[in-house]
């Protein structure tokens, strides 16, 4: 549905180098990477908001020379960018070629805000505003929807809830999505495939499972939450405290997350996270020895 070949963007210096990426119909691809890695620039290139070289095509149609407003590409921005002088209905209907109250109502219902038509946008909560922004982006039925850190400005609880809701809406409607985030939880929750972007280059494009099981390098391994020890990546459940463990670890933190205890620490400057049971939980500041265990055994 969306295909990019050798896309490059330069401001004063190159920001994106030769990006090749395919997003299939109805697929949700999430670009994951640190801030300043060129993620937003890639979306802006697809939307036609920055100049680029290389080719971008949507539904087989090349977008070369097509201005932003004729690309049939929708976009949701980090801070909702709802137009403050228009009410909710006018915002949602902004991208429609003619007034269509029925469609506006339908879109608002889709995002769980039925009846909000005549509210002023500055009376909405952060979550409501983002849902209106989603309704506005989906109303013109874009071929591809771009999400630029759409949940970046929300608090953790609201974000978790909204990520699931938005994903549901997008799946139900079979929308083709290219999203951008620096939050791996968000990426793994939403995406069919995750594209890891570092310093303007795509390092690995794969499903979450593949990223966890076969990260191409230590950078990707760390990004997806694995611990890298002596050049090998370990998931949390494969590391345990044992008296004769190969690695000496200084404990820096402990938490209880998703039904298990996690310990974080440092081995020779490398951050490591592993699981523990409640009874053998080490104290912060303590040095323990850890080693690989077979989670199955």
């Amino acid at each position, binding site marked *: 549905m969306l295909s990019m070949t050798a896309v490059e963007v330069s401001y004063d210096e190159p920001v994106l180098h030769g990006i090749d990426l395919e997003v299939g119909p109805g697929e949700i691809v999430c670009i994951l990477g640190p801030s300043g890695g060129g993620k937003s620039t890639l979306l802006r290139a697809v939307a036609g908001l920055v100049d680029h070289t290389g080719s971008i095509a949507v539904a087989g149609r090349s977008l070369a020379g097509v201005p932003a407003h004729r690309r049939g590409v929708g976009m949701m921005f980090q801070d909702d*960018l709802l137009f403050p002088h228009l009410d909710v209905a006018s915002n949602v209907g*902004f991208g429609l070629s003619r007034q269509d109250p029925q469609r506006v109502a339908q879109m608002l219902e889709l995002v769980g805000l039925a009846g909000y038509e005549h509210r002023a946008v500055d009376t909405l909560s952060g979550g409501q505003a983002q849902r209106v922004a989603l309704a506005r982006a989906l109303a013109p039925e874009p071929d591809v929807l771009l999400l630029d850190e759409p949940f970046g400005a929300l608090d953790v609880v609201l974000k978790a809830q909204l990520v699931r809701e938005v994903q549901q809406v997008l799946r139900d409607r079979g929308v083709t999505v290219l999203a951008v985030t620096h939050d791996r939880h968000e990426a793994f929750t939403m995406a069919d495939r995750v594209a890891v972007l570092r310093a303007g280059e795509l390092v690995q494009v794969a499903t979450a499972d593949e990223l966890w099981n076969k990260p191409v390098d230590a950078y990707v391994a760390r990004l997806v939450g694995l611990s890298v020890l002596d050049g090998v990546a370990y998931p949390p459940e494969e590391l345990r405290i044992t008296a004769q463990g190969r690695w000496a670890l200084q404990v820096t933190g402990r938490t209880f997350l998703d039904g298990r205890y996690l310990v974080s620490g440092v081995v020779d400057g490398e951050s490591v996270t592993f699981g523990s049971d409640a009874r053998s939980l080490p104290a912060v500041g303590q040095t323990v020895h850890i080693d690989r265990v077979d989670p199955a055994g």
Partner: protein
Amino acid sequence: MLVVPVVFLLVMFVVPVAAVFRVGLETGPSQMLEVMGAGRTWQILGFTVLQAVLSTAATMLVALPAAFVLATFRFPGRGLIRALVLVPFVMPTVVVAAAFLALIGPTGALGVDLSGSVWGLVLAHMFLNIAVVIRVVGSVLATMDPRLEEAARVLGASRWTAWRRVTWPLLRPALRASALIVFLFCFTSFGVVQVLGAGQLRTLEVEIYRQTAYLLDLPAAAALSLLQLLAVVAMLAVVGNSGGARTGNAVDVARAPVGWRQRGGVAAVVVLTVVVVLAPLAIIVVRSLMIDGRLTTVGWQMLFSQGDSTNAVDPFSAVLASLRTAGGATLLAMLVGGMAAFGLAFRGRGGWLRSVDALMLLPLGTSAVTVGLGMLLAFGRPPLDLRNTGLLIVLAQALVAIPFVVRVLAPALSGFDRRYLDAAAVLGRSPVRALAGVAVPLLLPAVVVAAGFAFAVTIGEFGATVFLASPADPTLPVAISRLLARPGEVTVAAAYAASAVLMLITAAVVVGMDRVRLSRAVAF
């Protein structure tokens, strides 16, 4: 984009001012030096500074409590009061002077005659300028997070220490900036001193006019102009370094007053502010209908009787002349000022752009009389004689209005988030339709406010206009000053009637601005 406003200012401001000095130098540089060195000149300069200092102090004294109450407390009618305190600022100086003449003049309503004394000037200047302090200081107060003081308290600071080390330093730039602006306005004030001074009070500005118009001593006027300009440039250099700092969040931190002391304080300040603002305006209407303590409409009749042979001033056509010139000047100021604001907003503020910013503000702090005189000298005689075209007044008034236009439009333009245009583009709007559908409605309030300010300023402009208005076809402020200067109870009543008309036109403009959210106006 910046070329047009810069050229406009150079031609319309620098050339006329230079013309004043050239005439002075041509007729006799030694005479100029003599004037500048004379004891009388320094006496006038001393009085000019004195009245400006007193006026500034009085303005701060009255305005600061009002600024504090309006920014700190939420109470019914707060929005109305906030709009009301802006009214005096846009009132023409001649109208204000007439009002205070009616209050504290020889036959004043308050029974004390302060005309011809410095205190009359102080009161009128205070009335004119309270809005400056309330807006500049208020905008800082209103956004000052009360938690900052709380943070200081939990760090061990006493109430007084927290105020001295946190609140006061945050407030100081705004206080200094507003005080300097008020001082500058009072320093170059013309209409008020001319009308209220009763010929006895001489500030530099009035003396420049007197030397030119009555004594026809151009070198003396030029010397005084130069002296004044030097003083103003020195002060502007200080103002330029001290913008009012905002403490960050744009959240309205006002709260409801608690307890009888706070409520009483709020009520007292509100009542006092309303009285200070409305009493001078009301007295104008009263005096236009009163002769010798009797109610009569002869003043208004005289105002609307055209072609009366005893009446050298035709106030009715003065209204038309005022509307005509102010309309043209507003249009011109919006065009030139708009270009300046656009250029300043979208090209950063580094390097030489800062000096363009300062250049745009220059007419605000400069003697209007000097500008008027300069324009007459530069463009009022062959080879370029524009005197009878009416064009000179329009140009001079536009020049005076440009700083206001720039001050309102530039922040609005630079505050406009251009990503709204991106959002409109990805929703299928072409660039033109995105501008029309998003940028225009979002910027319209600022445009209306800028135009309103420009219109109010131009229609009340007196200092430059008094030189440039043709004797047969004066604008309203000029007509009012002439009527006030002539003997006869009926003429004076007619002067007040004309003042009332001018006041109503100005008030209508302010109300119109208020309808598009006056609170968005970023003055100064």
